[in-house]
């Protein structure tokens, strides 16, 4: 199905890009896109694109990255996880803790400095705790904020917490050989449980208020959002580009071959001697960490994160993007995520005029979800390869179609359908 299934017999003489032409094309597109947006931005260019639109584009790149992770776990390994947006949001929470802490610290130190006497560390930390947690009626910093003062530690946590959660959850689920729709339900339950927990005020992450003001980067007091938005766009583009190359490398080799084999017939893979559960756990954890990285870059651009971001619907959207873009090919996931999420923000912005249809009017904000749902069903039924399938059509790639029951021994070379033709 995907790229990376190309000839490899003379593997050593061919470079990575020769085997994966789509990776090179993708990087070129991404570079061109980043350059054009930069030149049209308010900070570095002609100001054609508003800062908020640059942020939308930067966020879209992060969504493309998490879609890549989803494609690896679902499109390649065949595990429909409905929990990857939870890992994405957890990464966002972890970086959000540092952003909020460090920013509040600046404000508190400034405010206390006006009193004349230099503030003691106790006064500062008390001030920070009151500022952040006053909203949930508390003035103590919970234990989970112990590392929030340090960017490197909190960045480490941003990847480690989702990674360890995925490792433990995956170990429990895969070890008992839970597969298919049952696994999807289990991952969804995990997401829901996490969201419900974070909604509580005593979860230590400000309950349903979530974390806010994340767009203000500490230590860059005078940098305007115009500049910051472009910097984050660059960082997101870099992460997406590197993520794409890394995953293209992973799926182009024997590892990709093994996980696609697991998707198609995991029992057979076991009899070949591969520990299927270990591979699933490996992919699950790897993709959770990638999702968390995307979240780390996304939420400073969004500015706010709250437990609603972990709702199972977010992970279902993620699956819809990948399905519409085309499972089992990396560029398909990116196209799906970019296309559908940008269309989503267009249709739900309220700026499109209603279309009058006799007695009722087609209101885009209300009807967008219905349209998206219909599109998802249509893609699943009519074009299972999604938008990515169009590229196959251009290249005249046709799928092998020899399925059907085998005929009796003496017609061994034929399949049911061929014999009928």
């Amino acid at each position, binding site marked *: 199905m995907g790229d990376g299934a190309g*000839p490899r017999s003379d593997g050593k003489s061919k470079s990575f890009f020769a085997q994966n032409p789509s990776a090179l094309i993708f990087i070129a597109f991404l570079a061109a896109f980043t350059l054009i947006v930069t030149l049209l931005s308010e900070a570095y260019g002609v100001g054609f694109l508003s800062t908020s639109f640059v942020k939308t584009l930067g966020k879209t790149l992060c969504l493309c990255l998490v879609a890549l992770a989803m494609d690896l776990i679902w499109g390649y390994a065949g595990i429909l996880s409905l929990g990857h947006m939870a890992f994405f949001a957890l990464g966002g929470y972890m970086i959000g803790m540092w952003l909020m802490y460090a920013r509040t610290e600046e404000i508190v130190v400034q405010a206390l400095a006006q009193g004349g006497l230099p503030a003691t560390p106790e006064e500062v930390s008390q001030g920070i705790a009151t500022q952040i947690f006053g909203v949930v009626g508390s003035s103590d910093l919970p234990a989970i904020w112990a590392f929030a003062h340090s960017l490197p530690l909190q960045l480490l946590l941003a990847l480690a917490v989702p990674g360890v959660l995925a490792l433990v959850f995956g170990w429990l689920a895969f070890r008992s050989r839970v597969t298919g729709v049952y696994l999807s339900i289990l991952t969804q339950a995990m997401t829901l449980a996490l969201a419900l927990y974070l909604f509580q005020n005593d979860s230590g992450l400000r309950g349903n208020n979530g974390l806010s003001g994340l767009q203000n980067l500490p230590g860059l007091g005078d940098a305007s959002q115009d500049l910051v938005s472009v910097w984050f766009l660059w960082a997101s583009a870099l992460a997406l580009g590197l993520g794409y190359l890394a995953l293209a490398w992973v799926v182009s*080799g*024997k590892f990709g*071959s093994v996980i696609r084999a697991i998707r198609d017939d995991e029992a057979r893979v076991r009899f070949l001697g591969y520990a299927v559960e270990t591979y699933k756990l490996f992919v699950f954890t790897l993709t959770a960490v990638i999702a968390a990285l995307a979240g780390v870059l996304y939420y400073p651009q969004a500015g706010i994160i709250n437990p609603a971001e972990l709702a199972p619907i977010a992970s279902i959207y993620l699956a819809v993007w990948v399905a519409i873009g085309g499972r089992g090919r990396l560029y398909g996931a990116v196209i799906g995520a970019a296309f559908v999420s940008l269309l989503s923000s267009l249709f739900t912005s309220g700026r499109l005029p209603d279309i009058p249809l006799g007695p009722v009017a087609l209101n885009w904000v209300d009807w967008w979800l219905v349209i998206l749902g219909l599109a998802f069903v249509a893609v699943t039924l009519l074009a299972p390869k999604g938008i990515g399938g169009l590229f196959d059509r251009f290249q005249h790639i046709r799928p092998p179609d020899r399925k059907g029951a085998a005929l009796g021994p003496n017609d061994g070379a034929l399949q049911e359908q061929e014999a009928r033709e």
Partner: protein
Amino acid sequence: MSALLEVSGVSVTFDGFRAINNLSFSIGPAELRAIIGPNGAGKTTFMDIVTGKTRPDAGRVTFGERSISLLGMNEARIAREGIGRKFQRPTVFEDQTVEDNLILALKANRSPWAVLFWRPKAADMDRVQALAEEVGLGDQLHRKSGELSHGQKQWLEIAMLLAQEPRLLLVDEPAAGMTPAEREQTTALLVSLAKTRAVVVVEHDMEFIRRLNCRVTVLHEGSVLAEGSLDHVTRDPQVIAVYLGRG
């Protein structure tokens, strides 16, 4: 000659039904053996037990010179010990090329990290080419295996088994779905394979077994009814009563 695989006193019950009843079986390191028996005699369950798919309720299954127990090992671990299994229907990875299929099966370290950094060496590709040529797929390496004919898929799966370099090969109805010419090729291949390793063939087709010219084990209701040459077992009155008589 000590046995490579030793199954002794094994019993399995599914929901009160005794699929395998105090079964004992052993095979040497270079031996060809055919297993026959009516439907429900426990042939497939026997293979499931040896390959780790089914856990027996009682009994011992040991493998190799050091007689390590296979019970408690999972399927992948048992496969790495050197037991290969060929299913009745060809199960190849249809979405991948013949070459990819063979590389998957090639004997190598199976841990995820080792596989992630594995890149084909010239020796590996030569081996893949040689295996493909051995089963007549030498010019089909870059085709998706889903495009192959049924018979070609059977051959690809056999080549994959050879790539695994198993010490014990369990083959379920190898002749099903093959043309007469292919059956003859298969017979010759199985006989030559059994010179260097143990091969167990489960088969219904008496004509095919006669050509294999090997010891035969007759299963009935989960235990061994008779064992010996084909002529010996076909003369056994018990065998005639439960199996051949009906056929």
